[in-house]
């Protein structure tokens, strides 16, 4: 099990979160994400590649 700071760093390094976009309370909750769950997120990020630099990158998914 890795420590909370290393989890946060791993997620940030993978481009999954930016600390500045999350509240202090949310950052504290990063400690609750398991290493296995982080692995899933990182693999998906690697598969998808980097997010668009375009600020207008939030797009709808399947609308149900």
């Amino acid at each position, binding site marked *: 099990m890795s420590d909370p700071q290393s989890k946060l760093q791993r997620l940030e390094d993978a481009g*999954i979160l930016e600390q500045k976009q999350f509240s202090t309370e949310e950052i504290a909750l990063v400690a609750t994400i398991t290493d296995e769950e982080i692995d899933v997120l990182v693999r998906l990020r690697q598969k998808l590649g980097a997010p668009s630099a375009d600020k207008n990158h939030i797009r709808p998914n399947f609308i149900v």
Partner: protein
Amino acid sequence: MNEVPELRESARIATHATIVPPGQTGAALWLKITLAQGLLNTAAQRFWSQDDLARVFPSFLLELYSVVRCSVPLMAAALERATELAETDGLAARTAAYLKQHIEEEWNHDEWLLNDLVAGGMDRSTVLSRAPSAGVARLVGAQYCWIRHAHPAALFGYLAVIEGNPPLDGHLDEIQLLTGYPPETFRCLHLHAADDIEHLRELRATVMELPLSEADAALIATSAFATVQGLVSVFEDLTKQRANRE
């Protein structure tokens, strides 16, 4: 009572090393869903930004219809299972209460969307006779597995992702412009643009208040992650289909 305890057990093992602050299980779960949702945004953005969106848009509409058509029956299956468990299972009771209301909110949306597709030039009987793709079957089928063999609350992960990024009216207008489809094709989608923000707010409030064990939260997170992976695959399949036709 859970009939396949090993699935609940595996979910428990997945989180045994974490310590969730008291009363924070729902918030911790929502954070995981939010992070996964962010990844889906990348795939969605790539799909909507492709050059010849007009060519792939009909296939998107058919896939969308498949997902929408599956939604109420899927929730009904979860409601049935949750009702069976509710007497002795507080999470199941909350799940049932939420689904009962949400089924009413989503009722007939498949018919509305079908009417919109017909207004856009698609043949009603062709749309109705089309079987869901393998991608949609994987996406929705996973939920039936968890509903039946783990816990119906798993569906919260699916719903949070699938309703988690509602379209904006402006973006729908942009898609209409890019694809050349008539405004009538987008009536149901515009309705969702307005409704889903409220649905998401309700869903978040519900999840935050659920009586979740760590195993329950892990199951819902797994469901959310699988839903993101499933939707990414559907987007990729749509793009590949277009490429293969070229």
